[in-house]
């Protein structure tokens, strides 16, 4: 049985890895910035991971990490936990996800972050028996009432969570689940999370009419800061 699983994981791993590997040379060649990703992490009563964490910045080579199976824990089962990053790009994927004590499962969960934006995809994903969109819009939130007998432990599910961070980077988390494990005991599980930054200026949307054009918060991530003049005198060669 175990052997069969491993064989299956190897096949899935190849399938998951291939798209990034193929697209890598063309996409990465002239991109700067940071890329980071992890396959799975959980915070709360039972901390897990991050599993397969990767991080690169400008000038570094693309990198990836994989784990065949998540270590035994009371929260989640998953396999083929991949994360890959290159400057300005990141991707994470997890196969055969199943939340223990909750009816959330998926065959493959993927998050991708590129200079053009973020994207998540879910293959054969089901919450309480209901199939979830393959490509849900960003920040699709599904609240589940605590008294819902079908999912007594799930408090909230966010699909394709996308957060523009203060440092200018974008974080894409394919699934974020908040689970109640008892009174005042919650667990937040992030499945497939990719973060990237320093998108080329062309890809940075205008900040809107009210924002000053040079506001530091609108700068691409990894960009050197606009200087703040300091009071001081230096006789220079006028």
């Amino acid at each position, binding site marked *: 049985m175990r052997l069969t699983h491993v064989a299956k994981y190897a096949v899935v791993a190849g399938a998951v890895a291939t798209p990034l590997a193929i697209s890598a040379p063309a996409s990465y060649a002239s991109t*700067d*910035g940071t890329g980071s990703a992890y396959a799975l992490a959980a915070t709360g009563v039972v901390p897990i991971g991050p599993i397969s964490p990767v991080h690169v*910045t*400008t*000038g570094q080579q693309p990198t990836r990490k994989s784990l065949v199976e998540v270590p035994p824990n009371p929260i989640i089962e998953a396999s083929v936990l991949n994360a890959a990053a290159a400057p300005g790009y990141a991707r994470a994927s997890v196969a055969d996800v199943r939340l223990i004590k909750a009816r959330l499962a998926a065959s493959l969960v993927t998050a991708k972050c590129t200079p053009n934006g973020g994207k998540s995809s879910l293959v054969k994903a089901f919450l309480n028996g209901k199939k979830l969109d393959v490509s849900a819009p960003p920040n699709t939130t599904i609240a589940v009432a605590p008294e819902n007998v079908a999912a007594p432990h799930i408090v909230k599910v966010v699909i394709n969570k996308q957060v523009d961070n203060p440092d200018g980077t974008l974080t894409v988390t394919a699934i974020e689940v908040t689970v109640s494990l008892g009174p005042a005991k919650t667990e937040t599980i992030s499945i497939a999370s990719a973060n990237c930054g*320093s998108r*080329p*200026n*062309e890809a940075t949307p205008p900040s809107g009419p009210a924002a000053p054009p*040079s506001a530091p918060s609108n700068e*691409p991530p*990894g*960009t*050197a*800061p*606009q*200087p*703040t*003049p*300091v*009071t*001081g*005198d*230096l*006789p*220079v*060669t*006028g």
Partner: protein
Amino acid sequence: MRNRFEHVLGVRTAVLTAAVMLAAGCGGGGQRTGSAQERPSAALQQATTYTTLQGLPQEQASPATGDGTVVHPTAPLPVSATPGGPPVAILPDKQLGSPTWVPVVETKPGWQQVLLPSRPNRTTGWIPSGDDKLKSARSTYVIKVDTSERRLVIVNSGRKVGTWTVAVGASNTPTPPGRTFLLASLAPSKPTYSPIILPVGAHSETLDTFGGGPGTVAFHGWPQKSVFGQAVTHGCVRVPADALKALSRVPLGTPVLVTA
């Protein structure tokens, strides 16, 4: 250099000083005294605009623009003449009150070669790149000064932000050519000729000191528009108000390419 310096002072001091004073200029004229704030000591010298560093490699002429990587030490870092070599200077975390940001011009495994703000011009040094005291970022800007055309061009992400006609160094006090970088952003406590002074890493090669300062070249404004387009300064680049505004937004450490 000393001969040229003495020549400048001996023959032209009166004219220069008078002109500078009349124009409420950059510091008040050249002086013969050595760099008053240079601090030679048994300890390693600081890589600042006040010091002259010996034994470090100088960047050659006609450099490429680089990839825009700039680094900021959050604490003083040792500087070596070669990757892995013994420290010969210290790069402090601040320059003239602004955070130190220097451009990376070359990389080797574990080491980065950066431009330094000390004399002689185009001095570089190697700093350890994996140090957790080193913040790395990228400037998408390049500042270009053509002293023949007396033109300033600011480029951001490969696109021109603007082109301005500026005043550059006079023939006997030229704006030094080569690659340097934006060193600091200063708001003078009592502004006379410019609300903002933007010193760069380079120094005049004909004036050892100027107005009590170490002869640092800078971008700054100027009250009389008639100077723009002329080679009349002591090395600084005087720019129109809107150019100064654009320059003041450019990150420190950004490369400045001066061509003749």
